[in-house]
């Protein structure tokens, strides 16, 4: 074939396709050539690189907002820092001051009373009642009841506390007094006269759901055979609760008690909104709230971040010790099985 004929021939669709495919191959070759060094790097370090890229963001957050503050809490506790953020080291003076603080014994008592009462009555007590009762009624009703007990927890704390502040008002028309009035009980100003009742109920209603869910999961995992065997032996409902259900949820019971002790000990949000530690002088002030007040509320124009941090240090130490204990006692390590897969 002469070159002329090539040029004289009409250009067909196949020609265009051929040109394009050649171009495409060229581009691909070019890209491969350019990328091959990069690919080598990725092949060599890609796996490690991927791991680091995946894990770095979370570790960054944890370092900046957990580990550094953790260390800082201890350090600031040894200073007389205020809002100027100057590091005035004063040694262990803050801790000596805690020992001599004339309010410390009262606040300590309040804390123990609050944690113990809320825990027994609600976080464990009420949680047991709700989960056992809902386990003995048809499940479609039971799950609705449990769902409703979840409401206080998912309601924003400010709204939930506001509702109770309204319900507990002093006048006759307030919800609580109105109901008690139906039963012939005289009205009272709950926040002023009986602040602990409201503080414990509000925290308790929120706290109930945690235990309720844990216990319900445990109760549901009791084999049906146990119930049948007990019934065959003539056990009443109360017998079944006493001799089948309670012994079977011993472990969850311990878990909820331990876990909720720590969270009650350190949380102060609802008390802050409800009574702000009052009425009067530190009537319902708990340790964590005291630390908050000292650090962020200026009494007599002074905010004592240093002293607040020293007070918080006590809780941080308790917190870390208890977390470590949970980790050992509740066999957290078993949850850490090595990955089945190696990539």
């Amino acid at each position: 074939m002469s070159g002329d004929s090539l040029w004289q021939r009409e250009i067909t669709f196949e020609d265009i396709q051929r040109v394009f495919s050649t171009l495409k191959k060229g581009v691909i070759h070019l890209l491969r050539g350019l990328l091959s060094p990069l690919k080598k790097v990725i092949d060599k370090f890609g796996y490690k690189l991927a791991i680091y890229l995946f894990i770095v963001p979370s570790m960054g957050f944890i370092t900046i907002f957990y580990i550094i503050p953790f260390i800082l809490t201890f350090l600031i506790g040894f200073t007389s820092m205020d809002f100027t953020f100057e590091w005035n080291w004063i040694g262990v003076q803050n801790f000596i001051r805690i020992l001599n603080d004339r309010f410390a014994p009262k606040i300590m008592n309040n804390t123990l009373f609050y944690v113990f009462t809320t825990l027994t009555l609600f976080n464990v007590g009420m949680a047991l009642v709700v989960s056992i009762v809902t386990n003995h009624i048809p499940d479609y009703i039971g799950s609705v009841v449990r769902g409703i007990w979840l409401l206080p927890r998912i309601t924003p704390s400010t709204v939930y506390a506001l509702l109770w502040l309204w319900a507990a008002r002093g006048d006759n028309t307030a919800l609580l007094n109105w109901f008690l009035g139906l039963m012939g009980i005289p009205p009272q100003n709950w926040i002023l006269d009986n602040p602990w009742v409201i503080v414990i109920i509000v925290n308790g209603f929120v706290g109930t759901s945690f235990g309720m869910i844990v216990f319900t999961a445990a109760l549901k995992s009791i084999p049906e055979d146990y119930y049948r065997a007990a019934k065959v032996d003539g056990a009443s409902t109360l017998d079944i609760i006493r001799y089948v259900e309670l012994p079977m949820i011993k472990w969850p019971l311990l878990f909820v008690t331990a876990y909720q002790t720590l969270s009650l000990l350190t949380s102060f949000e609802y008390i802050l909104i409800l009574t702000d530690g009052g009425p009067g002088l530190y009537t319902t002030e708990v340790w964590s709230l005291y630390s908050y007040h000292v650090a962020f509320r200026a009494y007599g124009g002074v905010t004592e971040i240093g002293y607040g941090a020293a007070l918080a240090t006590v809780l941080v130490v308790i917190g870390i010790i208890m977390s470590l204990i949970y980790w050992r006692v509740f066999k957290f390590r078993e949850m850490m099985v090595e990955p089945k897969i190696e990539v």
Partner: protein
Amino acid sequence: MDRLNIGGRTGLLTALVVITLVIPVVILYFYLGLISISTDMDGVVPEGFTLEHWMEIIDGEIPIAGATLYKYPNIYLVALNTFILAVLVAGLEVVISSLAGYSLSRFRFRGRSAILTLILILHAFPGITLLIALFFVLNQLGLYNSLIGVVLVKVALDLPLGIWIMKGFFDGVSWDMEMSALVDGCTRLGAWWRVVMPNVRNGLMAVLIFGFLSGWAEFIYAQTFIADQRFWTFSMLVYAFTTGEYSYINPGITAAIALLYMIPVILFFLFAQKYLLRIQLIGKGGA
């Protein structure tokens, strides 16, 4: 499966028990709803119905009885701030915890076991005790008095839980499934996107919803780390109604605003309870 009916066959006793258990919780919410549409209340009995409380806040301005100079921030601005906070917290939590969860579930590397231990201990550790030090950190980072500061702190404190949830879900996707996708010619990235991710959708939803509600309801960090009214969220606004010099506003209006604030919570409660229960089971104890 109902194990045993209390008191034998009587449905009446069951009904009575259920009502006793439920009333103390739900009555407050009915109370809230009624206050927002009533002229005044005697106990649970409204004296008359009105929509005036809702009409009064429709322009976003909150009237304060007896105060002329002080103004609350506009409700729409407050809603926007709360929404931004919640969305950022949810988004960051999902992305970061699924990345970490995936690597902790699938890769073996040095320090993995240490990181898992750390995450579990932090999950049990009460982050609120670090409040004072966090205040210092945010000040040093120049993030005091900003929404983003609260977002970052919130994300960090929720992360151990999020990572743990996501790791659990990734553990649940069998390696065989991922492997067969690879054999069929998927790239690793392709397998991750087409096979692994759809299988952990429930986990992603759980973390997303948890993060959103946790940001939406956040009070103590917002209250402590934000000073400027421009950055107020609903929780700070509602708190202001219960405390301080200008706290007195009409209960009807307060109730209407509180209900507005509750809308996403109610929606999630009605339509996403299975995710909420899942989170609560592994989630933090709270109060």
